[in-house]
């Protein structure tokens, strides 16, 4: 009896296939809810920056001018903006069914992320060479409270931004693999679009970090 029912159920399932539920808008709302928590995380740090720069105005201006290279900051800004453009174009390409073009554009985005990391590596090591890091002799004996606060914020905020960039980079590489395997298609493209949203958020945060740390001198 039960065996009979099982067979019936199985054949029923086989003869009545139903479309898998795929809800792009719901997927996107979920991503935005996460992005909102991200915005508030960085937002809190920006409020902290605002308060500290109010207290240590002169030290902040001097520290920004003495240690941070505007050229490197501006270069990295252009790199991230370019990566945002190629990210958006890559999503457009996948929507149009142009898989290869999408992969090339995504590859450029990934290359931009690596360039950004390269520049950041030079910037941070230059600071370490000058003894500008928490706990160094120079830091403890020669830097005043304002300068220390500025660089503590600099390392935490660009550091947290860097962590996001690294996670974003891993996600983009994963997307590239999935496009290659044909798992991201015009119908099921939301993974690429959500990773794109995350990538643009990283760009968004940098748009504020750049002037606040590099340009205020």
């Amino acid at each position: 009896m039960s065996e009979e029912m099982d067979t019936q159920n199985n054949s029923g399932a086989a003869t009545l296939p139903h479309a898998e539920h795929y809800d792009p808008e719901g997927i996107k709302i979920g991503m935005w809810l996460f992005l909102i928590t991200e915005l508030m995380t960085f937002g809190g740090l920006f409020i902290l920056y605002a308060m500290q720069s109010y207290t240590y105005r002169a030290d902040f201006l001097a520290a920004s001018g003495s240690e941070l290279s505007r050229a490197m900051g501006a270069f990295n800004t252009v790199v991230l903006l370019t990566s945002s453009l190629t990210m958006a174009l890559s999503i457009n390409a996948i929507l149009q069914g142009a898989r290869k073009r999408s992969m090339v554009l995504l590859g450029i985005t990934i290359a931009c992320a690596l360039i950004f990391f390269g520049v950041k590596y030079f910037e941070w090591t230059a600071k370490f060479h000058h003894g500008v890091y928490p706990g160094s002799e120079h830091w403890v004996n020669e830097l005043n409270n304002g300068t220390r606060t500025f660089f503590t914020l600099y390392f935490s905020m660009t550091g947290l931004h860097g962590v996001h960039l690294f996670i974003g980079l891993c996600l983009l590489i994963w997307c590239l693999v999935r496009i290659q395997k044909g798992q991201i298609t015009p119908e099921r493209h939301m993974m690429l679009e959500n990773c794109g949203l995350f990538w643009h958020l990283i760009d968004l945060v940098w748009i504020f970090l750049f002037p606040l740390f590099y340009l205020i001198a």
Partner: protein
Amino acid sequence: MDSPAHTPPLADRIYVAVYGALLVLTAITVGVAYLPLGPWATAVALVVAGCKSSLVLWYFMGIRTDPPIFRWMLLFTLGTFVVFLVITYTDYLFR
């Protein structure tokens, strides 16, 4: 071409135009930093950053073509952030 094509919400040339605008704004914000504006320098830099981030949100992040709920979610977030900012500033200035 492994699947039928969909029309993207925004054409490629719109993204390229927005990218151009973002580059121009970056050039402006770097250029302005060399002018002797004193305390206004930060204000100008933040206004330019605000314009750039609006462009990124509106076009690159697709708020322009998304259903209205995304706009409301974003506005609610920015409103909450402003409340935090104002409360912290008032506490700080009048303590």
